[in-house]
């Protein structure tokens, strides 16, 4: 058995060399014919199965975008639900090729855990949700409150810092299971529930008729840039994932949508021609086909389309996530 494994180990690098893309992860994805993507599977707006069992959300569409670029087909994704406590080990061990799971980009995670953040798909921040009956209008009123938060998240670190900074104290209730912690909040065990503002919006939206009993406090107490995560040591895969995101932003900047793409292929704008692979060789540099952006935009859409599909129904406006030309932070470096 071990001899077999040793033989396999010796063959794998030769296989990779033979394929020559230079990225072990990309080669594995291509030979498997499928992208294994780590998501949450229970966060409305980011990754939640609909009634037919199809995974919907910003993170799910991010997975589909990478699959469209790497394999040419956005449907070739296998979603692997992960919790906050096993998400990083699943990525580190190779169980998933990429992790798009509402994960905040921090120094500790990049430098200490051997991971790389390939861009930001959502600029978020930590917020608080309280019951309207509590009569609280600002986070500064929360001195001495009990706060529900999931352990192992950057949220628990953020609120510890915030309360320390403002010389207030709080009592934490830390339960790992998302449903359990939300249940504790609605049952009244905690005065406030704290997580990323986007998750709070999605949760409030999913409460349906009961949404009116809860308010989200105006303060955003930390920066939480959320983005896709890959392993260190595979630079080509990192490039591919990062530039997939940038390609979607560039498409929105240039006004290319899934509906107009057929016309845009005939465009005379050099930037459009380069992005869509009519000119230049951007795709080959990334290790994929020249027209990698075409299945990407056609099957998944540009960043604005994805946002409108997944986030707008929750009632969240673009805000910081708008294009830099419209006052937001989303900015794609030049694709040339």
């Amino acid at each position, binding site marked *: 058995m071990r001899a077999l*494994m040793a033989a*396999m*180990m010796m063959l*794998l690098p030769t296989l990779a060399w033979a394929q020559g893309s230079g990225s*072990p992860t990309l080669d*594995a994805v291509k030979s498997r014919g499928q992208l294994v993507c780590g998501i949450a599977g*229970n966060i409305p707006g980011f990754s939640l*199965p609909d009634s037919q*069992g199809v995974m919907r959300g910003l993170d799910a569409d991010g997975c589909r975008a990478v699959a469209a670029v790497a394999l040419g087909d956005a449907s070739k994704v*296998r*979603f*692997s*639900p*992960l*919790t906050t406590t*096993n998400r990083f*080990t699943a990525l*580190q*061990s*190779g*169980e998933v090729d990429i992790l798009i799971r509402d994960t905040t980009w921090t120094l500790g995670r990049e430098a200490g855990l051997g991971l790389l953040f390939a861009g930001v798909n959502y600029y978020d921040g930590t917020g608080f949700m309280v019951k309207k009956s509590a009569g609280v209008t600002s986070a500064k009123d929360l001195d001495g409150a009990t706060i529900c938060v999931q352990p192992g998240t950057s949220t628990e670190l953020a609120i510890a810092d915030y309360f320390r900074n403002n010389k207030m104290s709080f009592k934490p209730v830390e339960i*790992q*299971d*998302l*449903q*359990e912690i*939300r*249940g504790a909040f*609605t049952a009244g065990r905690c005065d406030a529930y704290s997580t990323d503002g986007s998750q709070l919006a999605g949760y409030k939206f*999913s*409460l*349906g*008729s009961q949404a009116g009993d809860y308010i989200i406090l105006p303060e955003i107490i930390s920066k939480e840039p959320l983005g896709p995560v890959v392993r260190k040591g595979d630079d080509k895969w990192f490039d591919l994932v990062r530039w997939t995101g940038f390609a979607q932003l560039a498409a929105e900047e240039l006004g290319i949508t899934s509906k107009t793409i057929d016309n845009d292929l005939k465009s005379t704008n050099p930037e459009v021609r380069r992005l869509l692979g009519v000119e230049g060789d951007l795709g080959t540099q990334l290790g994929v086909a020249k027209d990698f952006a075409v299945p990407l935009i056609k099957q998944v859409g540009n960043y604005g389309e994805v946002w409108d599909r997944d986030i707008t129904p929750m009632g969240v406006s673009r805000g910081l996530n708008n294009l830099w030309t419209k006052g937001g932070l989303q900015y794609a470096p030049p694709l040339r």
Partner: protein
Amino acid sequence: MIAWVRANLFPGWISGVVTILLGATILYIGWGFVSWAIVNAHWTVPLTPQGPDTGLCRDTHAVAACWAVMPEKFRFILFGRYPYDQQWRPAFAILLFVALYILSGLRRFWRRGLIGIWIAALLAIGLLMWGGLPGLPFVAQDECGGLPITLILSTFGIAGAFPRAVLVALGRRATALPAVRLLCVVYVELIRGVPLVALLFMASVMFPLFLPDGVSIDKLLRAQVAIILFAAAYLAEVIRGGLQALPPGQFEAADALGLSYWRKTRLIVLPQALRLVIPPLVNTFTGLFKDTSLVLIIGILDLLTAGKVAIADPLWQPFGEEIYLVLGAIYFAFCYAMTRYSRGLERADPQRGGR
């Protein structure tokens, strides 16, 4: 009748008071529970174009159970995310498991052939669940869930643990090989001293680090390995008890016949020793069956986890108690059957002085 009441419920002064107190408490709690669960309960909810309307159920939840959650969610609780149209396969697998347990319990099947039956049944269940044959499309690990996962983890667990447990038990009694004995003792004491939760964490987080690049084993398989390691330690102790209970005359007679160690063990010692320890063996299996619920903590979708995820749906979120009661009933059905069986075995065993 009155005499019975007098003798059994009011034999003495204090006893009489105890009866009255207990009786009153039972009636109070019992009536409260019955009125919540049956009398006032809602069995259906109105269906609107936007989906089921659970408003009335929610508002009256303190006094009325909402059993409408069951028909809505029972398929998810039992089968997890298994593709809807293929759910006959896990259902059939559950029936195969039950048949296997019942078959193993019948005395007339306690022959060598039973091992063959187990292997065949487990292979059949594996094929059924994962497919890959024409006519049985492949279903990935992540989509299996619910009751079949609980049954798989516990049954494959005990099956995988059994040969290892026998080896460890024998090793622990091998006075001629002190190094082996030390290893077995260390293994058993180490595993029995730590909680299963810690072993599951070790499996889900540390196992991947032990494997070379490019080789990764599935989450379910990792949990299965941890459960096998755990079960083998406890089972080894049970088997060791059986080996110790065997009269030394048996060993001596086998040696006198000139049998080698392995032939002695295989033909004389093990059949008798294992027969002695069947009741504690069944108890260990019952414990393992309940312990599989701990995989909730590492995110595997077994019966308990499926129940919890089912009430994640915001429409049905307040009805945790109903789901927990149904899950408890399912676990109880399996475990009670097994404990009744083992107790029946103990009583009927002529060697223990039973009737």
